[in-house]
C-alpha cells in the first residue's frame, strides 16, 4: 500500500466517533468549560461595562460591542463547525459527528439573531436608525436565513441518519457560499452607500478596551463548547438508550 492508502487519522479521532466514549469524555470535560466560561464572561463583562473608558466618538454605546462582536464571531464559527462536523460525518460515516452538527444549529441561530438585534440596537445611538442595510448586518441576516434553512430541513426529515446527511450537504454548500455572499453584499453596500460611515472596523483600540473583548470572545467560545457537548450528549442518550452502557450509567447516577 502506498503511504496515503495506509494513512489514518489519529486514534482519538475514531474514538470520538464512539457514542459511549464521546459521552463519557465529554461529560468529564464539560464542567471545566463551564467554569472557564463563567469566569471569563463575568470578568470580561464587568471590565467592559464598568471599567473601560467611554469611546471618543460613540460614548457609552460602544459597550454594546462586548456583546455584539462575540455573538457575531461565534455565529460564523458555529456555522463552519456545523459544516465541518457534517463533512466528517459524511466522509467517515460517523453518527456522532452528525449529532454534534445538529447540536450546533439552534445555538448558532440564536447567537446570529443576538448579533443582529444588538447590532441594530447599537445602530440607533450611532447612526440614528435602528436598521441599516450595511454589509455586516445584511450578511449576518443572510446567515440567519441559512441557519433557518438547516433547522427547517432537519425538522422535515424524520430519519435521523438521512437528516444528518442532508443537513450536512446543505451546511457544506452554505459554508462554501459564505465568502461569495459576503463579497457580493460588501460590494453591493459600497455601491449604495450614501454616507461614508464605517462601523467599528476594529480600530486601534487601547488595551483597556480590547482585552475585555478578548475575554468575552474566549469566554463565549467556552460556553459554546459546553453547550454543544451538553446537547450532543443529550442526543447520544436519546439515540443510544437501548445500549447496556446507558443502563449502567443510569444506575450509577
Amino acid at each position, binding site marked *: 500500500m502506498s503511504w496515503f492508502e495506509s494513512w489514518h487519522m489519529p486514534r482519538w479521532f475514531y474514538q470520538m466517533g464512539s457514542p459511549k466514549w464521546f459521552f463519557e469524555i465529554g461529560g468529564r470535560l464539560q464542567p471545566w468549560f463551564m467554569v472557564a466560561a463563567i469566569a471569563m464572561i463575568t470578568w470580561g463583562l464587568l471590565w467592559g461595562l464598568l471599567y473601560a473608558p467611554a469611546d471618543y466618538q460613540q460614548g457609552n454605546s460602544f459597550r454594546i460591542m462586548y456583546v455584539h462582536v462575540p455573538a457575531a464571531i461565534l455565529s460564523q464559527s458555529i456555522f463552519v463547525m456545523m459544516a465541518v462536523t457534517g463533512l466528517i460525518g*459524511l466522509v467517515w460515516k460517523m453518527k456522532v459527528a452528525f449529532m454534534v452538527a445538529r447540536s450546533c444549529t439552534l445555538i448558532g441561530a440564536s447567537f446570529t439573531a443576538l448579533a443582529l438585534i444588538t447590532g441594530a440596537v447599537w445602530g440607533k445611538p450611532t447612526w440614528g436608525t435602528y436598521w441599516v442595510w450595511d454589509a455586516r448586518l445584511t450578511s449576518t441576516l*443572510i*446567515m440567519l*436565513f*441559512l441557519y*433557518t*434553512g438547516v433547522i*427547517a*430541513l432537519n425538522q*422535515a*426529515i424524520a*430519519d435521523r*441518519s*438521512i437528516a444528518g*446527511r*442532508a443537513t450536512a*450537504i*446543505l451546511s*457544506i*454548500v*452554505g459554508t*462554501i*457560499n459564505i465568502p*461569495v*455572499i459576503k*463579497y*457580493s*453584499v460588501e*460590494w*453591493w453596500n459600497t*455601491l449604495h452607500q450614501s454616507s461614508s460611515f464605517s462601523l467599528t472596523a476594529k480600530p486601534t483600540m487601547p488595551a483597556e478596551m480590547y482585552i475585555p473583548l478578548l475575554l468575552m470572545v474566549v469566554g463565549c467560545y467556552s460556553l459554546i463548547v459546553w453547550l454543544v457537548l451538553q446537547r450532543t450528549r443529550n442526543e447520544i442518550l436519546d439515540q443510544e438508550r437501548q445500549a447496556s452502557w446507558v443502563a449502567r450509567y443510569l444506575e450509577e447516577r
Partner: protein
Amino acid sequence: MLGFMYSVIRRDLLLVMRHPAEMVNPLVFFVLVIALFPMGVSPEASLLSQTAAGVVWVAALLATLLSLDILFKADYADGSLEQLLLTSHPAWALVIAKVIVHWLVSGLPLVIMSPLVATMLFLPADAIPTLLLGLLIGTPTLSLFGAVGAALVTGVKSGGMLISLLVLPLYIPVLLFGTGAVAAAVLGMPVGGYMAYLGAMLVFALMVTPWAAATALKVGQMQG
C-alpha cells in the same frame, strides 16, 4: 455518458411538452408577479423605472423557485429516479441533464420575456440588453442551486416551501450582481465586471452543485 445525458434530456423534454402547463406556468407567474408591483406600489413611471431591475430579478428568482418541482418530483414518485441513479452513469451527469431541461423550460422563457416586462416597468431602453444578458447568465446558476434544494427535499412532504428557505439565501449574490449590472447600465457605466462575476458564479455553481445534488439524491433514496 453524453449519450446518457442526451437521452435524459430528450425524455424529460418530451414529458414536459405533454404537459405544456409546466412550461407556461412559471412564465405566467413571472409576468403576474411583475404586474403586481405597479398595482401594489405605484404606477408612476419615475418610481417604477428605479425599481424595475430589482422587481424583474426578484420575480425571476421566485418563478424559478416555483418550477423546481419538475426536476425530480415526478421521477421520484414513480420510481424512475431510483433506476436512473442505479445506472453506471455518474449521478452528477443526471443532475446536469435535468438542470439543462429545467433551464430550457423555465429560465430561457423568462430571459426571452424580460425585455417586454422591463418595458412595462419603464426600465430605460439602454439598460435592457444588460438585463437580458445578466438573466441569461444568471438563470442557469439559479437552476443549479435550485437543483440542490430540490434534491435535498425529495421525499419530504410539503417540500415546496422548504426549498425556498434553503435556496433563496444562495440566490442572493446572483440577485445583487444582476441588478447591480443594470444599475450601472442605466448610469452609462461599463458592465463587463458584473457579467464576469455572474459568469464566475455560474462556473462556481457548475463545480459545486452537481456533486451536492447527486449526493442529496442518493441520500434521499435511502428512505422508504
